């Protein structure tokens, strides 16, 4: 394994979040009764013609601007000809020689914590095309049903350069892209409904070799887990083949999630000749500078810009800033929290969102948008830590109470449950005195030089205070008394 280098490029189909289809006025909503959202154009009745949906073009422009790509002044729609029952016209309208978006790149973070590193993945292109319908093979007694509701749904096909060198990088890229298209509002990212699906082109080569190995394309991976499993299997399969003296043949393969294996769908010899040519029903797509400028003006702050701002404005580390901008929901939650807790508390806000909240969400299998603790509630909690009303340890109790809906605010819970930190030095001194008096053995050990005995005494005081004594004050008083 170690002498092999893995090379991965990814093609992604992102369904664009337009109300109507790319070349007709029919609705794109998911889940309607079969064929109720297919108009004459989608059915490819004789004589009908496509008319380009400008909203779909705007999505492509947004994407191009978000990845620093060139938005082509002129791009051309082409027909990709092949016969299939879910392709009513017998061709798919796509873009071939002149795509709407050229180049660009995405910066992603691979791995976590200390092992995390940054990676730049370059994009080849992104082009607009229409989705096909669906073939339904069940419930038709030996026949197939066709549902054309999806036919004509706008897609942005996003093609990366073969820049990724591991399945982890591939997944990190797919996740970053997935987050980005949702961030800029061009795709709902729903992978179960097929709104975001990936094909992975995988090859291996001996380390140090300049040429790429022969690639095989794994089609239609609709979860990040499948993407990783499929690539891992495929890589191992290719290495085994080569090590056993066989050559890899260019092919398209499918991943079977049940067996965890990839299997051949068609070889290069079976590849279609799609007979691409410019669609004479559509004029070249011309995008003016004014249009691009307008879309630019409507773009939200992008993850990269936000990351830089989090570093400069809040003094966060690059790792924290990247984690907090991994998707728009996390970023929004964090920003709402900071907005209430204040800039000076940005670091604890980051920690709470990235660590405590993330762990709790993970435990319950919830998304941040479903968090029972709101940003305002979390900010209220952080403010009470900051002003020493509660300690970090008590804060975790309050957080859990908020999570369980035991109170509307951190203050209410602190109040109801009497969790307010004891900072009255007289009261703490009394507790310290009691503990010193009751634990002469520990005192003696400490004086004999056993540092551990000190911690035991702290623990005793905190226990007596039911955890509410200010730890710093307890420390200081104990040290003072023991020294005295």
């Amino acid at each position, binding site marked *: 394994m170690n002498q092999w280098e893995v090379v991965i490029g990814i093609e992604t189909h992102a369904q664009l979040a337009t109300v109507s289809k790319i070349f007709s006025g029919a609705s794109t909503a998911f889940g309607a009764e079969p064929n109720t959202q297919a108009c004459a154009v989608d059915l490819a009745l*004789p004589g009908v013609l496509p008319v380009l949906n400008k909203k779909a073009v705007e999505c492509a422009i947004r994407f191009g601007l978000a990845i620093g790509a060139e938005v082509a002044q002129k791009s051309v729609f082409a027909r990709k000809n092949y016969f299939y029952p879910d392709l*009513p*016209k017998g061709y798919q309208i796509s873009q071939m020689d002149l795509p709407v978006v050229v180049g660009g790149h995405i910066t992603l973070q691979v791995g976590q914590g200390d092992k995390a590193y940054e990676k730049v993945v370059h994009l080849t292109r992104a082009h607009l095309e229409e989705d096909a319908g669906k073939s339904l093979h069940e419930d038709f007694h030996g026949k197939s049903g066709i549902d054309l509701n999806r036919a004509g749904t706008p897609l942005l096909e996003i093609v990366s350069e073969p820049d990724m060198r591991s399945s982890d990088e591939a997944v990190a890229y797919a996740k970053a892209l997935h987050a980005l298209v949702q961030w800029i509002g061009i795709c709902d990212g729903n992978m179960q409904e097929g709104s975001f699906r990936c094909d992975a082109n995988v090859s291996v080569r001996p380390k140090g070799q300049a040429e790429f190995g022969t690639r095989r394309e794994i089609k239609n991976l609709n979860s990040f887990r499948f993407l990783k499993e499929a690539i891992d299997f495929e890589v191992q399969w290719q290495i085994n083949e080569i090590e056993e003296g066989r050559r890899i043949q260019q092919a398209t393969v499918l991943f079977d999630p049940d067996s965890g294996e990839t299997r051949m769908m068609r070889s290069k010899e079976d590849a279609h*000749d799609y*007979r691409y040519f410019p669609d*004479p*029903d559509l004029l070249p797509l011309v995008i003016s500078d004014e249009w691009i400028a307008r879309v630019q003006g409507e773009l939200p702050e992008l993850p990269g810009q936000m990351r830089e701002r989090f570093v400069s404005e809040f003094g966060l580390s690059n790792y924290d800033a990247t984690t907090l901008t991994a998707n728009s929901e996390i970023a929004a939650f964090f920003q709402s929290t900071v907005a209430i807790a204040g800039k000076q508390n940005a670091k604890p806000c980051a920690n709470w969102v990235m660590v405590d909240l993330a762990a709790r969400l993970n435990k319950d299998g919830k998304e941040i948008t479903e968090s029972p603790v709101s940003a305002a509630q979390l900010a209220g909690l952080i403010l009470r830590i900051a002003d020493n009303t509660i300690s970090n340890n008590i804060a975790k109790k309050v957080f859990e109470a908020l999570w369980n809906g035991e109170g509307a605010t951190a203050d209410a819970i602190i109040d109801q449950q009497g969790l307010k930190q004891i900072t009255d030095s007289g009261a703490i001194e009394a507790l310290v005195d009691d503990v010193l008096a009751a634990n002469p053995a520990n005192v003696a050990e400490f004086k004999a030089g056993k540092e551990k005995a000190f911690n035991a005494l702290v623990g005793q005081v905190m226990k007596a205070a039911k955890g509410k004594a200010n730890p710093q004050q307890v420390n200081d008083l104990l040290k003072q008394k023991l020294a005295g």
Partner: protein
Amino acid sequence: MINKSLKQLAQALAAKQISSVELSTLFLDRIERLNPTLNAFVTVDREKSLKMALAADARIAAGTAGPLTGIPIAQKDIFCAEGWTTTCGSKMLANFVSPYDATVIRKMHNEAGLVSLGKTNMDEFAMGSSNETSFFGPVRNPWDTSRVPGGSSGGSAAAVAARLAPAATGTDTGGSIRQPAALCNLTGLKPTYGVVSRYGMIAFASSLDQGGPMAASAEDCALLLNTMVGFDERDSTSLDRPVEDYTRDLEKPLNGLRIGLPKEFFGEGCDAEVMAAVRAAIAEYEKLGATTVEVSLPNSHLSVPAYYVIAPAEASSNLSRFDGARYGYRAPEYDNLEQMYEKSRAQGFGSEVKRRIMIGAYVLSHGYYDAYYLQAQRIRRLIADDFVEAFKSCDVIMGPTSPSTAFKLGEKAADPVQMYLSDIYTIAVNLAGLPGMSIPCGFVGGLPVGLQLIGNYFAEGQLLNVAHRYQQATDWHQRRASGAE
């Protein structure tokens, strides 16, 4: 009544001399009597037509009629019309009842109030120059029923020539309005590409197809064209420009008109007597105040080869939707999906359509695309440039529409190349996207000869004017065929 112009019919309707129902019945009766000989119509539905006529009469009575409300016309069976069988001359669509109206149909019937007398026969998917490729059998030329009417709008041409309809629509991809107009002594106009919406007009070659009027005179064509044109947001190649009244300039004198005569149109390849009639017509124009100038279209000899790459390429893709899956013909027996496609298409398409699908698939295929398709597109640009150059020294270009008069049924059917050459003068106009007309200009052996007029982009009004003034001075266009009577 049957020989009256559209203007006269409109006056008669307005003056209540005749109702639309009576007028439509007159033509429907003629169709019933003469169509068995001519085979010009593939679908006639008296009930539907009379219902439209009744509605037109109501509009006339209510005073909400347009200039042509109540006048019956024939529609080429390439235009989808809601509730009407729309076959495109093919077995593939023999049972296809359109659930929607083409834009042209909506404009002409719903808006202008014209009455449809039915759907006219045509070469299958508009592929042909003789109307012999129709699944519904050949159309016969009313001037001589042993001869072809031309194609692909042969049914429309024969219908108007035999006065089964006062006027008709046609479509023109490489000459399909102008050549049958020439062969049947009609006036036909192919507008500038993008002037008439293609929505609902079953596509043959999308970048070349254009609908237009076929009638007895330029004036009738102008009136009909007024009802057909206009920007259509459903057709991305439709042009958004101010609507014109095409009758406005009909009477303009021709003094100073510069007629360009391309030397390539007056060389070999054209029947000598046809050429003599064309030259006589040009002499007549000189009498009307026009001058002539020789121009050159140096790449015109490449137009037929370029056309027979581009048109089949587009057709091969356009006709992919006819797969037997959703509508149209499906083979009765098949074992799997591939067979369903193969058998349905093998049985549903005729041989000329299959030939062009195969040529088209070939020229688009990997390894041949550059040599054929891209090369043809380059030639197309050169041909368009030739016209731009020619129009620097003239206002209108003239020449023969077709190199011969109507040929015998079966005469060229076995030789596709001979058939393709019958469009040698018309094809370049489609490749360039220009407007072109054919007008009657004489007879050879009792068969009509057509003069072709080619205008600059959007010069439909000028072409109609040039044609109309000639028709004021001559009576070729008023001669009537009697072969079917």
